[in-house]
């Protein structure tokens, strides 16, 4: 578990908003100075509420959006500067599972075409071998060979997501970025798909970046978690540590919002005041200071850095500043 597979350094993704011909452009800082690294074989979680930039982070790593600045080192190679063609070839090792299984499969293609395409475009195997691989993988994800000649609309959401996963796994990549892979599914199907992901991880030695807003799922499957708020990572720690003892006030509030299984059990909920500020003009200093229960003077002026604590976890909060 010691060797790093993916290293993200000061990743930024700013979207320009055109305000009109005679006004300056403003920027949505969807991802702002995000750094983390992912070890081989681990499951790395990214959590946060809607609009915090977690999906954008995943997509930017894969360059589905062009990044504004920063570096993405995959297996030691900086993939953020590769040409389109080189990046295309590198994608064999980096795959993605999309959120909406209803939108992520081309309605005009049969499942056979969808599953053999990744192998074909990377020039792997002969046509016959590719068809065999597709037949193999579709059984692995729990569907049947006879499903190969059907079209996506003939499947349920859970089945489609299995196909989406099969398409990502068929290339035997090193890293799979799963962008909310179960949030569009029924709860009963969610656990099946998660178990499938876990089984595939064992069988194919996969590394996952698991992006989700579902705290329960993240707790269940990840090894380490990064919590994002307004485009920044506020806390990054081992999953058990983070859930046992959240340090950042935002993480504390977030975790207190997770439903408890027993109706008699009570928990002190931390209710945050107000709304998430606009990412176009985020608050000065710590972006969370407008809603923080333990806000101090320094929080309004200085941006807290993500600092590594003694026990190996990192928090971006002035409360824990070493000074």
């Amino acid at each position: 578990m010691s060797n790093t597979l993916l290293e993200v350094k000061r990743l930024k993704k700013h979207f320009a908003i055109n305000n009109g011909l005679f006004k300056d452009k403003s920027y949505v800082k969807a991802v702002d100075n995000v750094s983390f690294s992912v070890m081989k074989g681990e499951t790395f979680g990214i959590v946060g509420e809607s609009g915090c930039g977690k999906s954008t982070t995943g997509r930017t790593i894969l360059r589905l959006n062009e990044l504004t600045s920063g570096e993405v080192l995959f297996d030691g190679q900086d993939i953020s500067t590769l040409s389109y063609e080189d990046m295309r070839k590198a994608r064999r090792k980096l795959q993605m599972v999309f959120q909406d299984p209803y939108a992520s499969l081309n309605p005009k293609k049969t499942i056979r075409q969808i599953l053999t395409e990744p192998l074909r475009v990377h020039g792997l195997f002969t046509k016959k071998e590719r068809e065999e691989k597709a037949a193999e993988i579709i059984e692995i994800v729990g569907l049947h060979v006879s499903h190969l000649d059907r079209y996506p609309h003939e499947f349920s959401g859970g089945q489609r997501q299995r196909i989406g996963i099969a398409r990502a796994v068929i290339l035997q990549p090193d890293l799979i970025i799963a962008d909310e892979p179960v949030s569009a599914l029924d709860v009963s199907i969610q656990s099946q798909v998660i178990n499938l992901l876990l089984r595939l991880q064992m069988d194919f030695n996969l590394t996952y970046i698991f992006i989700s807003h579902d705290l329960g799922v993240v707790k269940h499957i990840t090894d380490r978690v990064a919590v994002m708020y307004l485009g920044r990572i506020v806390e990054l720690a081992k999953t058990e540590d983070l859930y046992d003892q959240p340090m950042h006030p935002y993480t504390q509030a977030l975790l207190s919002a997770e439903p408890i299984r027993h109706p008699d059990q009570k928990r002190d909920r931390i209710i945050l005041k107000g709304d998430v500020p606009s990412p176009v003009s985020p608050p000065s200093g710590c972006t969370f200071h407008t809603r923080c229960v333990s806000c101090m003077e320094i929080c309004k002026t200085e941006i807290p850095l993500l600092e590594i604590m003694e026990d190996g976890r990192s928090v971006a909060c002035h409360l824990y500043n070493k000074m």
Partner: protein
Amino acid sequence: MSQVSVEKRILYKTNERQNGKVVSLFKRLVKNPFGFLGFLVILSVCIVGLLAPIIAPFNPVETDLTKKLLAPMTEGHLLGTDQLGRDILSRIIYGTRISLLIGVTTVLFAGLIGTTVGVLAGYFRGWVDVVLMRIVDVQLSFPFILLVLIINAVLGTGLKNIMLSLIVVGWVSYARVIRSEVLAIREKEYIHSCFATGVPQWEIIVKHIMPNLFTPLIVLASLQVSTFIIAEASVSFLGFGVQPPTPAWGNMLNEGKNFILSSWWLITFPGLALVITTLGINLFGDWLRDELDPEMNQNR
């Protein structure tokens, strides 16, 4: 499941798909009454055009002023004669050749050019889009007739130049419609997933975006075939179109309109031919569109 049986099933399926493709497509066409009707209409119109010299009862350009404006079913003229005594049925039969040639060729080429431009503009966006769409805007700012006049005045009249001018006029609507369609498709998650998989750009365009353009293309094309056949009439009206006495449905309509109150058959029958052909193309086009959309035919 054993490896062998999986393999067998794959092979079986593959063979079935490849051998039976055309046959099963035709079988499905026969089962669809409207689609098949459209197909028969198109087929018979083509046959009529091809066999015109054999089928036509009279010479389409021979004038006989003693027999002018005869009503249908008189003196062997099934659909009557026009103001110069020419047999209307024969003129419609011969006119099929030119009208169909104009309609189909112009739509084909206009569609090809317009789709290419639209796909490039919609896919690459940025300056490619700006340049191509400004060309379209410039083109659209010219009135249709003026553009046709310029082209024909410079290049001279003749069937080839009529078709050329109609193509020049026609491609812009394809470019506009296809561009907006591509802009929408490009942002679909399944196109993003192609990028993530590592599909080369040209394959994304040809294999993933283009198949989703069939619906708007078929709707537009089946409309434009008839539009262009009639457009030939307006060009003829200005003296640049198909030159008399050569018969075409467009110029027959155009000449016949002067006699609409006294001799209705001059304009009715070529109009009917146009309506039937257009209807046939539309019915067939509808069937083809549904056939190409897997969600529309569940039970194949």
